[in-house]
């Protein structure tokens, strides 16, 4: 616009900052939410299994069987306990006091020392807890190898050996994976929800009309209302970044400039979406609900933050493609962990840019149409 006056936008932004500072809800949301999310996803929810409880029923009571349980404990993944009454071990599994029961038969030690025979151990797992069981299963081959080597004293020959190395996140530390993704959830929520609320509030209490009775332009209103929330969004990103780097020692391999640019693009998409919601609803209550559904849920569930998109039904492969959080998730993780540059991220960046343009155009068009009679 030709005669865009920054001073008017600045007045609106200043007023907005005062609203924010005087509203406990906004302050709590902007400051508290990043903190809670980081604590929640960084510490409380740990997708890595450590110290899984296993109950060992040792009918053998030999040196070999004791060695076997030690191998389990020393791996760090398992914590071995012994039942008070060995005949009631199934009860422990029923009552979820243990994740599995390891049964060592009375002849375990003997079979082991007789050549040509395979000593067998039975492991009963709680199939009701799918994720835990699959985690345990993934640890078992390693334990088996360690046990075979230590108990028989010789390395078995393996005709084909698959050696897997995990690049970018060698320890498969789930925090490395989760914490950068938090930036997505945070921006998704702050930018969409707060923008939707702030503009809807002006409509709801009739003050938008007062703004419009002055020579102020729609673009000045948009820029003024949005700027403080861009800052809040970036503040949230900075918090997540510091928490990731300092709190969780997540490496950052990529370019900071590219990361900030991508954040701004994603924030833009969120703000436009929030603006669109507020113009359509014009009510804070409704705007809040719509923002939650269209903002929080996709960034939490459909972005690949927790559930990999590859394992979703085919429909969602396409559906998530129109959601900004999915692309920003790829970008955030790529820059953090892989050090990806523009070359590698050109696809997601382009997708984000297209969505920015579409959402921005829709929001400002609708907004201007409503404002200019």
């Amino acid at each position, binding site marked *: 616009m030709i005669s865009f006056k920054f001073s008017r936008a*600045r007045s609106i932004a200043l007023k907005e900052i005062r609203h924010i500072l005087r509203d406990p809800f906004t302050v709590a949301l902007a400051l508290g939410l990043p903190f809670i999310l980081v604590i929640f996803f960084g510490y409380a929810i740990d997708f890595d299994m450590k110290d899984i409880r296993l109950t060992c029923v040792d009918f053998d009571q030999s040196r070999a069987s004791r060695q076997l349980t030690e191998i389990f404990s020393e791996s760090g993944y398992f914590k071995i306990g012994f039942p008070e009454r060995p005949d009631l071990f199934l009860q422990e599994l029923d009552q979820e006091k243990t994740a599995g029961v390891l049964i060592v038969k009375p002849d375990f030690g003997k079979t082991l020392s007789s050549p040509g025979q395979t000593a067998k151990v039975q492991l009963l797992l709680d199939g009701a807890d799918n994720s835990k069981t699959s985690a345990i299963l993934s640890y078992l081959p390693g334990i088996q190898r360690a046990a075979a080597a230590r108990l028989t004293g010789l390395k078995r020959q393996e005709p084909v050996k698959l050696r897997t190395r995990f690049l970018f996140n060698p320890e498969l530390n789930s925090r490395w994976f989760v914490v950068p993704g938090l930036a997505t959830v945070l921006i998704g929520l702050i930018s969409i929800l707060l923008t939707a609320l702030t503009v809807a509030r002006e409509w709801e209490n009739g003050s938008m009309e007062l703004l419009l*009775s002055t*020579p*102020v332009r729609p673009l000045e209103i948009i820029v003024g209302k949005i700027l403080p929330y861009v800052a809040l969004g970036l503040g949230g990103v900075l918090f997540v970044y510091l928490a990731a780097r300092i709190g969780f020692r997540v490496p950052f391999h990529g370019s900071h400039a590219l990361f900030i640019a991508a954040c701004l693009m994603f924030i833009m998409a969120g703000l436009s979406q929030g603006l669109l919601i507020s113009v359509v609803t014009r009510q804070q209550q409704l705007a809040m609900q719509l923002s939650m559904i269209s903002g929080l849920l996709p960034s939490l569930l459909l972005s690949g933050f927790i559930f990999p998109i590859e394992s979703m039904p085919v429909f969602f492969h396409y559906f998530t493609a129109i959601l900004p959080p999915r692309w920003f998730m790829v970008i955030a993780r790529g820059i953090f962990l892989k050090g990806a540059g523009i070359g590698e991220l050109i696809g997601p960046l382009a997708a984000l840019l297209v969505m920015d343009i579409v959402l921005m155009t829709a929001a400002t068009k609708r907004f201007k149409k409503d404002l200019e*009679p």
Partner: protein
Amino acid sequence: MSPAAVEVMELTVRFGDFTAVDRLSFAVERGEIFGFLGANGAGKTTAIRTLCGLLRPTHGSARVAGLGYEDGGRALKGRVGYMSQRFTLYDDLTVDENMSFAAGLRKLSPEVLARRTEELFEFIGLTAPRNTLVRHLAGGIKQELALAAAILHDPEILFLDEPTSGVSPVARIRFWKLIRNLTEKGKTVIVTTHYMDEAEQCGRIALMRSGRLIALDSPAELKERTFPEPLLELDAQGRDPDDFLNTLRRNPGVIDVQPYGSRHHVTVRSSSEEAVLSSVPAGMSLRRIPPSLEDVFLRLVEGKDR
């Protein structure tokens, strides 16, 4: 420069099929207090919002301070002040913050803002500290502050949409004093109201019904024109007036009998006034009264619905 502050020709505003304002024509002189009176939904607010540049006329034209809507109404908006009935000031901002926000929207310099707030706070007699949150102010003071914010940029024309709804009678009297002070300084004030005592204070009143202008004149002229015949008020003073009312209704010299609270207003032909006055039964009082604006309103606005 156009001599009239506002000039409206055949102004029509439609929302879809609904005609909110229907072929309105009038002119408002500089320094005038011009009132819009009418029931809810009569089109008063739509008319005012159009004149402020918040809506565009569907047909017809309006010149406000000599300006039209050619540039999106921006020049016009710079010359007028507007106080809406729904929103006055931001509750969670202080007095000063509200003022500096209003100044920012109008691009007033800090010097002008300081000078004007000083002048206006004296004008409205503000005693509350300037760092008080607006939420803690009384309704009447809030209204006066909103007025100050609306005229911060010293507009020639001020539009007030039911400015005193929800404030105390004392505060209303104070507020109208401010409005008169403004017009004495040459400002033009256009106001909507549904309080009759407020309408009485307007220089001229535009009476609206279903988007149409049905009468436009000074309060005195409106009364004179609507009630050329004498208006009598019957006070039964606790007695049963029904027999007498029936006698009156049968009297060819009586034009109309209207209940008015616990009393009745009786319109008679001038030639029959004496006879009717002397026919009043003992213990009741019947006397000639000047018609009030409420009588005019009832006759013109509601009367046509019957």
